[in-house]
């Protein structure tokens, strides 16, 4: 446990000193700030547009950051053999994976918090004052964070198996497919073949459902998600992440390190 904490803190420190991270956060802030412009141009929907843009920025850049650090940090350890240092100590391979994961999640949480602060600053600039009704976006941000936890888990899984370029491609592809699962099921249902229908249904249930976490549009209208839905989504995210981490550990434990 202590060792997992050591690796997590180390991973966090490493990613925080990564210049690309800052660039992405700066761009996210620019996009959020652009909400002020979009709001004034979008006749009649200033606030809606601002929230939409701000939350979309947090989501998109959060995704980019998750994929980038999820892949590059592990790859760097393997490529530069700093991994040898860690594993030559009395550290189990599973502890390494878990430590890396929690470090990455911590980084994402901090980034998201920074972007959220920027978002509320911009919202305050636009509205002049904030009320309790403006808490709806926080729910959407929580859902974004859940989604990013999953993405980082996927990125970690792939990056222990293949090169960073391939890992990025696989991770993003899985993200895209994970957003189209209902369509996948739909194709199956429309096709004549029962076997295909069954297969696609099974696949759509097994793959991670990223689309389920989209809450930006409702939040822009100030709509809150039902409490039990927050719970069910959190549970799904935690469970699926556990599955991803277990798979990663299983693969990593038997891997010959070159």
């Amino acid at each position: 446990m202590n060792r997992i904490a050591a690796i997590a803190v180390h991973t966090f420190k490493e990613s925080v000193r990564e210049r690309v991270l800052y660039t992405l956060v700066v761009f996210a802030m620019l996009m959020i700030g652009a909400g002020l412009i979009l709001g004034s141009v979008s006749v009649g929907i200033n606030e809606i547009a601002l929230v939409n843009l701000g939350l979309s920025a947090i989501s998109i850049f959060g995704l980019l950051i998750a994929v980038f650090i999820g892949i590059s940090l592990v790859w760097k350890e393997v490529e530069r053999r700093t991994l040898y240092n860690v594993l030559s100590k009395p550290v189990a391979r599973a502890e390494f994976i878990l430590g890396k994961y929690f470090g990455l999640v911590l980084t994402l949480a901090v980034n998201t918090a920074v972007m959220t602060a920027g978002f509320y600053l911009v919202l305050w600039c636009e509205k002049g004052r904030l009320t309790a009704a403006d808490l709806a976006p926080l729910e959407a941000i929580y859902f974004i964070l859940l989604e990013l936890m999953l993405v980082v888990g996927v990125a970690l899984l792939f990056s222990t198996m293949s090169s960073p370029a391939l890992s990025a491609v696989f991770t993003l592809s899985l993200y895209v497919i994970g957003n189209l699962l209902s369509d996948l099921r739909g194709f199956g249902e429309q096709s004549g073949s029962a076997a295909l229908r069954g297969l696609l249904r099974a696949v759509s249930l097994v793959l991670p459902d990223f689309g389920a976490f989209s809450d930006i549009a409702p939040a822009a209208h100030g709509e809150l998600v039902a409490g039990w839905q927050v719970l069910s989504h959190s549970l799904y995210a935690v469970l699926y992440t556990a599955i991803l981490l277990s798979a990663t550990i299983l693969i990593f434990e038997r891997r010959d390190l070159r």
Partner: protein
Amino acid sequence: MWAVEINELTKDYRLGFWSKKHKRALDHLSLTVEPGEVFGLLGPNGAGKTTLMKLLLRLTFPTAGSASILGRPLGDVRARARLGYLPENPYFYDHLTAAEFLNYAGWLCGLDAVERRQRSHELLERVGLSGSAGVPMRRFSKGMVQRLGIAQALVNDPDVVLLDEPMSGLDPLGRRQVRDLVLDLRRNGKTIFFSTHILPDAEALCDRVAVLNGGRLQDLGNLQEILRSSVQSIELVLHDPPPQALAALAGFNPTVTRNGDRVRLELSANADADAVLKAALGAGARVVSLNPVKLFSLEDYFLSRVQESAPRSTEEKVSSTEAGLG
């Protein structure tokens, strides 16, 4: 209990993802390392030295055979608790300072915050890096990296220390420092297992050596025995000796050569060096040096053994520049 016990350890690598062919990196290696000894693993590049290290550290998995460290089999995580490791060509974290890195290493070994701070301080001092504690590692020279690597290998005060090419990249001063460090560790009862292809280093430090070639163990033995058997003669150099000194030494049947006021006497290898020295000094001579002249240096010995066995894959042979100098 052996410090390290290796039993028929074998490692095959697949040549390609789809290929069925294997490359045998280590072939049924067996050897033991006694506690408290300095053990040298010699061999040309590609002989399997690094593979052996990685197997011992569980970075790769054996195809066959087994090994244990301080009585614990390799799969046991605790086997690494009393172990320290310096990898070949180490690369550490660019973004950390030396102190931060040692802190991390100590944390991974289970030291608490106070212990970590103390050990970092001690070790940085010991390897001569205390002035660079706050410097980010990306600014380190190769020599500094190497020294820091040794520091992190010692952070948990291990009983067994594995060093993979510890002298690589060091200037003569650095190498002297590492040598002294190794001897110091030995004095403290640690077991050192290091691999190198720089022979004078091995010569200066090791109790026993093993020669690895093409994944196989070629030779194993006490270094002194190997060296003594190769001594050809003893050379005594005197500065402007008085005639009675030469007379005193005549009994040893020396071959004498003069070079200005330097007189060189070559004596038989079986001559008792102590007696020779006594005689020379007793006769009032000034002794400049007394050295064994070897028929073979360890380098010659090594090269001959390696060439003899004609390695099966086209590995590069160790050139004399690589092996002897640096």
